[in-house]
Each structure stands twice: as structure tokens, then as C-alpha cells.
């Protein structure tokens, strides 16, 4: 059952077309990734979903409601974590959560949420004294304190160190497991690959692909590469005859086989039949990164 439906969304700022034509649906209980280069229209799209901006065209429906007309209702049911939104310097962690909890009809217990997000020891610490990771966790906590059905998280881990980023990912998985649908805007492919059930790639205001991360990779950048060192010389034809193989190259004693589909199985079977042992065998598959470059012509910024 879709909880968010966006159909032919359009939004411009003056002459600049931020969103040209975006359609997507988000299913209940999934982590849905919105990927794209900077300025592709990701943030504008989710801001329209969050009811912060009025679309110039197209439709947005969230939990069957209109984000503008039913804003009062939706603000109770949708938690939003915005890019670069901070809190007053002197506000303390517990105060922030208690304040935000007081806005909702059916809030989570702030104290429990603080512990769950690993901020227990920082309960009485002022916002300005928190580390980047702690600020980010507090920000996530504020998006969740209203017990939302949908959480929209924009650039969740930007500016975090690798450890803090991984911790945050673990947290998001926990949140999803508790039944919350999550919309995640990101430009980290690793993050999308690890967390998202499905991703939409947006480029120049349009959806250029929408699939699972693995589906996206295999349809857009299906090329795989196998490297190994054969125990005895191998005749190239043995490999090139396989339908999965597109090319065979040699670098020194190493053989590099390029191809698609179930390449690994095909190559290892044929080697086994000829009793050739493949030493130092490595399979290189495309990542979401490669698919992203293929789709947008941009290298994801990191």
C-alpha cells in the first residue's frame, strides 16, 4: 500500500526549474532513497511532500492526504529532519526533546528516545557542546518524537565521520523495524546501497531510474569482471565461447574476464571441467556508484 504518491510534480523558482517531472510512490514500511547530484531537485521534491513548498503542477498525496490542505493533520503523522536545521546553542538535549514532544498528541517518551539514540549521557548538555554525530542523532530524535508514520530524513549523514555514519545507519534500520516508513534523501551511494529497499535517481528535475539498488546496478551497469591466476595456461577460446563473457584480457600471469549475467558461475564451471585451479580469484561488480555515473553522467560527490 503506497503511503506517498507523487505524480508529475513540477516546481520552479523564478526561471529555475527545480523539479520538472517527478513521479514516484513510496510503500508502507520501506526505506525509500532519493538520490541525485546536487541541485537535481531531491530536496525540493521532499519539501513538497513535507508540505513546506507548494508545487507548481502535479499531485502529491501523503497518507491519502494533501500536504497543504491537510497540513495540520499531516504534521502530527510525518516527522521531518531537514538539511542544515539547527537548534538554539543553549538549548539542552532533554529540553529540546521535551519541547518537541509537547507539540504532538501522541508523542514518544522523550527519556526513552534519548537512551535509544545513545544520548543518555548528554541529556543535560547544551546543543552547542554536542559533536556533529550527536547533533545529528538529536535531529533524528526530534523527527521521531511525535511517533510518526513516515519520517523524511534529508542528508542524514552529511558531515559525519565514518563511524558516526555507520551508527546512524544502524539506528535508521531500527526505526524502520519499528514500522516507520522512511524517505531518505542522500548523495552517498554507500548509504543508499546499505539502507534503501528502493531508490529513485533524480537528475535535472526528473526521475531517471527507480528500482532496488541491486536491480538498478544490474540493469544500468551490468558489467562484471573476474580476475584470477590459472594453475595451467588457459586457452582464451575456452572462455570467449561462453555466452556470458564479452572479453578476455591478460595482464602478466593474471586473466581478466569481463561479462554479464551469471558470469562467476559460468567461468568457474568451465575451469573446473578442465581441472584448472583459479588462484587469487576476485569478482568485481559494479556498485550503485557506477550505476549513478552511468545514469547522470556525474560522479557522486563525497
Amino acid at each position, binding site marked *: 500500500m503506497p503511503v506517498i504518491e507523487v505524480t508529475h510534480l513540477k516546481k520552479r523558482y523564478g526561471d529555475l526549474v527545480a523539479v520538472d517531472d517527478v513521479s514516484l510512490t513510496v510503500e508502507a514500511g520501506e526505506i525509500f532513497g532519493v538520490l541525485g547530484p546536487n541541485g537535481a531537485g531531491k530536496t525540493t521534491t521532499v519539501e513538497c511532500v513535507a508540505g513546506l513548498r507548494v508545487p507548481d503542477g502535479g499531485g502529491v498525496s501523503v497518507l491519502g492526504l494533501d500536504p497543504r490542505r491537510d497540513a495540520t493533520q499531516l*504534521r502530527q503523522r510525518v516527522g521531518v529532519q531537514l538539511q542544515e536545521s539547527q537548534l538554539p546553542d543553549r538549548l539542552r538535549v532533554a529540553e529540546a526533546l521535551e519541547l518537541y514532544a509537547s*507539540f504532538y498528541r501522541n508523542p514518544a517518551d522523550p527519556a526513552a528516545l534519548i537512551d535509544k539514540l545513545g544520548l543518555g549521557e548528554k541529556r543535560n548538555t547544551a546543543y552547542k557542546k554536542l559533536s556533529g554525530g550527536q547533533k545529528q542523532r538529536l535531529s533524528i530524535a526530534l523527527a521521531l518524537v511525535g511517533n510518526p508514520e513516515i519520517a523524511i530524513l534529508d542528508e542524514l549523514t552529511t558531515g559525519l565521520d565514518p563511524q558516526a555514519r555507520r551508527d546512524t545507519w544502524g539506528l535508521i534500520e531500527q526505526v524502520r523495524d519499528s514500522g516507520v516508513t522512511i524517505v531518505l534523501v542522500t548523495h552517498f551511494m554507500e548509504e543508499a546501497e546499505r539502507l534503501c529497499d528502493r531508490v529513485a535517481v533524480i537528475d535535472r528535475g526528473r526521475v531517471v531510474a527507480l528500482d532496488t539498488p541491486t536491480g538498478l546496478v544490474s540493469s544500468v551497469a551490468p558489467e562484471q569482471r573476474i580476475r584470477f591466476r590459472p594453475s595451467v595456461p588457459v586457452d582464451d577460446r575456452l572462455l570467449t565461447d561462453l555466452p556470458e563473457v564479452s572479453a578476455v584480457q591478460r595482464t602478466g600471469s593474471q586473466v581478466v574476464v569481463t561479462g554479464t549475467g551469471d558470469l562467476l558461475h559460468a567461468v568457474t564451471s568451465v575451469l573446473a571441467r578442465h581441472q584448472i585451479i583459479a588462484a587469487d580469484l576476485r569478482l568485481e561488480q559494479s556498485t550503485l556508484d557506477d550505476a549513478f555515473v552511468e545514469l547522470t553522467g556525474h560522479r557522486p560527490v563525497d
Partner: protein
Amino acid sequence: MHAFRQILRIEARLYLRDLPTLLTIVGLPTMILVVLGLIPSLREPDPNFDGQNFVNYFAPSLLVVTLAMVGVNTMPMALATYRERGVLRRLATTPAHPGALLAAQLVVALAAILASALLLIVVGRLAFGVPLPEHPLGFVLAFVLGTAALLALGLLVAAVARTTKAAQALAVPLFLLTMFFGGVYLPRFLLPDAVARIGDYTPPGVQALLDAWTGPSPQPLHLAIMAVIAVAAGAGAAKLFRWE
């Protein structure tokens, strides 16, 4: 309403937590009054001030110090900071309206101004015999309208400035002008008459405060001008204010 109360509670706490600013806003005018009041010659009646002493004559200008600091400095800067840091925007995604935060800011600003004025009047009265305002009603009216005019100008600054830097660039000159025309830098009897007359009409309207405090009742025109500024600047601010 519930959200507003919670926000007000937190804003008040944050205000009290910033002790240096709080002490300056509430205590500085009274401190200056005490320093001046300790100089014996300034407590002598002087024909320059219609036979009053300097301390009495200068007290309304000390009120201007607080009004200027809060109205066109700390309050608009706080709002500009909240907007620049996305605090208002974040609030817009919750069931609470960012307007509640703006209202809470105004309430704490008013509370600080009131505390400062009361402290000044009480200390002036007890320590140096500065008479209580002769026209309590006129004084309250002049004070309320002057405060409203300055706060409205402050809101206008917060409304038109896109960043805290821009807010500062607008607030600082406005603050200096308010202080200057309010007779804080130079007592008004030292200012050329024309400049002093301009000061009668610039917020918060120091002449109306002086008139209500020590002399005849405030002139309706002075009060009316403050009301007009308050309404015009307030309406402009309401029209131009952006949450992000």
C-alpha cells in the same frame, strides 16, 4: 496554545541562561544611573533643566538604552539567528507554528524591558529621590507606544534581513541612531535644538517619556507618531517576514 506556553517557557529559560546579556539589558541603565547619582553636582537643581537636577532629566534617556538594546538589537538578532540556523523552518514541520516562537521572543523581550524600567524607577526613587512619574497613565502610554514602535522596527529588521550579518548591518546603525536621538550619548540639552526636536519623533520618543515623568503630560502628537511608527513598521514586518 499549549505549544506556545512550552515554547515561551523554554525561551524564557534560554534568556535567563544568557547571563551577560541579561545583566546588560536589565542592569546597565540602573548602573549608569547609580554612577551619575553618586556625583553630587548632578543632584543639584539646574536652570538648564527647568530647575530639576541632571539625574532626573537624564533618567528617560536611560530607559532608551534598554529599549534600544532589546528592540533593535538583541530581539531582531535572535530572530535572524533562528531563521538563519533553520530553527523556524524546523518548527514549521511540526504541529507548532513558528509564529509561536516569534511571539515568545516578543514576550521575553517585553519582560526584560519591563524589569529594566522598574529597576531603574525604583532605584532612582529610593537612592536618589528621582520622583515617580508625575503622570502615571501618560507615562505608561508613552512607554508602551515607544516600546511598541521600537520592537516593530526590530521586527522589520528581522523581516528584511536575510542573514544574521545583514540583520547586524541594519540593527547597528539603527541602534546608534536610537541612542543618539534618545540623548544617551550626549544629553539632549547639549544637542543642537533641531537634532533634539528630531529626537522627539524618533522611537521610543524620549521627550514624551520625559514629559510624562517630570513635567507636563506628554504631547498627543508625540504619542501619535509612535503609534503610527509601531503600526506601519509592524505591518511591514508582518508582510515581509519569512520563516526561512
